[in-house]
């Protein structure tokens, strides 16, 4: 990065934060601070919902996923449009009619106080743990490749988001997210255009090469349970996860209940229902095109270049040097085969085309084996080396192949993505602590100014907790997985609370409360005793909680059978 890149990076980050802080520094009341003003339109809501979901990892790691595995990850989002339709039709009207600040307030109104506190507590535990990762995960990647100090990167980006979120509240989050998304989309589109211009082939040939190397297999109807992404897992698993996340997670609920009307909130959700699949496709395709680019330009053996250079310096036996030379020879052979393949295609010689393609596929497999071998050697010397370097593919491409100025814009885009999701998490944590715990349990009658001040203090508290968590975290890969596991362990039960609240009206608060506790205990027991994927706990927790609530409610002697009616939607 040169001076121009730093000017673009620092100027855009500080400029957006300063504008958001200045523009939203005064608040009329608690509703204004936690929900924003009454003029928020559907586009702002839609962008805010998308920005909250799309963290820095989305824009840093997803192209790497496209590079390694192609487009099949896009299936993961197939359930999301359907989930958003269900939320817009059933969840949203009730949240708005009850005029709640948090999703868990609704649980209190539908069931009772203890169920409300249980839902809010599950959210705080889960989201509070995840909050540190939102800053830490991109910071470790960016500080590694840019040579910056990790602690300073975390502190500076963390303090920036804390300042404007605490001062401006929910409105500052929505306002800054709009401009941060503009930076992100501008940077990603510019990178894509430059990448296409740098390709030595036509776009048609690029797609031929990508397809030939199995990178354009976007949809699979396979019933193979070992296959991670298929149409079925995307549709069913994606529907389930999206219902949990968008329908019950306060960091999202707070985004769309802030609309000036039900119409604006609904259209904001529908904007995401249309946007998400094409957006993920575009980001994955960017990774696929980087893969094609590296068929004509030699890629590094290991994309985390600082780690590779350090390993080379300590390569006493010369194993990595030898592997690097072999990798270069394999690349040269593969490049020639790809050229032969395209020449045969242009000549209309299908037999020669198929032969060259098969040889190129074999050469690619050989290159991948060499890469895997190099990683094994590196891990033998340093167990801390990650086996997966896909997270570094896009950053390496940006730093090595984009013009100055645009490098600064892309790095700004990665930081913007980190800040935008972080700010939504912080304001959600602050508002849940204020509304569901402080106002409910500690100080029931106070002025709006008092609750606004309390909310600011709680947001600051969660921001500092997240910062501390990020600073003292040192096992990135394990922590990310740990946070995903924590989310999956709790999400199922939280979703069940809301599904029963919305759709099974004869189940009362006591039944659902004990069912939730029992289901959560069951999930904990199964987690420590069964060797299944943690994603299954979303389903198990939800199904167990719903079934148990029905059984407890139907049991002789149970009370509270006449649950309050929900407002008509």
């Amino acid at each position, binding site marked *: 990065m040169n001076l121009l890149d730093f000017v673009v990076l620092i100027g855009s980050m500080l400029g957006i934060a300063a504008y958001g802080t200045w523009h939203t520094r005064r608040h009329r009341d608690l509703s204004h601070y936690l929900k924003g003003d009454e003029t928020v339109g559907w586009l702002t809501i839609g962008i805010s919902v998308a920005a909250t979901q799309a963290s820095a990892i989305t824009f840093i790691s997803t192209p790497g996923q496209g590079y390694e595995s192609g*487009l099949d990850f896009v299936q993961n989002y197939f359930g999301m449009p359907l989930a958003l339709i269900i939320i*817009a039709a059933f969840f949203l009207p009730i949240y708005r009619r009850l005029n709640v600040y948090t999703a868990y307030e609704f649980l209190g109104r539908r069931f009772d106080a203890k169920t409300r506190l249980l839902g809010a507590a599950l959210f705080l535990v889960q989201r509070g743990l995840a909050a540190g990762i939102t800053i830490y995960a991109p910071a470790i990647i960016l500080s590694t490749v840019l040579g910056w100090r990790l602690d300073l990167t975390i502190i500076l980006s963390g303090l920036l988001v804390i300042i404007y979120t605490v001062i401006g509240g929910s409105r500052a989050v929505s306002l800054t997210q709009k401009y941060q998304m503009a930076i992100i989309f501008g940077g990603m589109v510019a990178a894509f255009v430059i990448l296409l211009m740098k390709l030595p082939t036509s776009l048609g040939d690029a797609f031929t090469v990508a397809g030939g190397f199995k990178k*354009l297999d976007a949809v699979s109807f396979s019933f193979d349970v070992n296959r991670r992404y298929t149409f079925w897992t995307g549709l069913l698993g994606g529907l389930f996860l999206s219902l949990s996340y968008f329908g019950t997670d306060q960091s999202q609920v707070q985004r769309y209940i802030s609309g000036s009307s039900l119409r604006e909130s*609904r259209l904001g959700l529908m904007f995401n229902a249309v946007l998400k699949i*094409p957006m993920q496709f575009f980001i994955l395709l960017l990774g696929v095109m980087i893969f094609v680019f590296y068929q004509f330009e030699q890629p590094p053996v290991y994309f985390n270049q600082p780690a590779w250079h350090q390993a080379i310096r300590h390569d006493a036996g010369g194993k990595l040097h030898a592997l690097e030379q072999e990798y270069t020879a394999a690349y040269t052979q593969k490049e020639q085969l790809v050229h032969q393949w395209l020449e045969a295609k242009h000549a209309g010689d299908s037999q020669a085309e198929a032969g060259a393609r098969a040889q190129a596929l074999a050469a690619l497999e050989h290159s991948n084996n060499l890469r895997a071998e190099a990683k094994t050697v590196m891990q033998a010397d340093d167990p801390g080396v990650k086996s997966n370097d896909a997270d570094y593919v896009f950053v390496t491409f940006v730093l090595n192949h984009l013009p100055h100025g645009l490098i600064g814009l892309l790095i700004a885009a990665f930081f913007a993505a980190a800040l935008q999701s972080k700010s939504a998490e912080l304001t959600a944590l602050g508002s849940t602590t204020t509304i569901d715990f402080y106002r409910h349990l500690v100080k029931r009658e106070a002025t709006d100014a008092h609750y606004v001040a309390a909310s600011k203090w709680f947001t600051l508290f969660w921001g500092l907790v997240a910062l501390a968590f990020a600073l003292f975290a040192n096992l990135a890969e394990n922590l990310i997985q740990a946070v995903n596991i924590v989310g999956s362990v709790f999400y199922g039960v939280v979703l069940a609370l809301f599904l029963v609240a919305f759709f099974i009206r004869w189940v009362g608060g006591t039944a659902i409360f004990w069912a939730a506790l029992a289901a959560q205990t069951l999930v904990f027991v199964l987690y420590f005793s069964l060797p299944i994927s943690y994603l299954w706990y979303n389903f198990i927790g939800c199904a167990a909680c719903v079934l148990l609530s029905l059984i407890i409610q139907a049991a002789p002697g149970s009370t509270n059978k006449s649950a*309050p009616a929900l407002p008509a939607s």
Partner: protein
Amino acid sequence: MKSSEGSITPTEAPPDGKDEATGLPWLRTWRGVYLFIFGCFVLSVVLLIALTVIYSS
């Protein structure tokens, strides 16, 4: 006015009648909007299947 726990009634919430209109000239009901979104989803999947089939050979 906010009600206490477990006491939702249809009358407590402010009327939201004007919000029910979509305000869209070509999709006047929310059912129509949802069907349109579902159609977009189906179209996305069909296009992705087409991409898979065309370039998998």
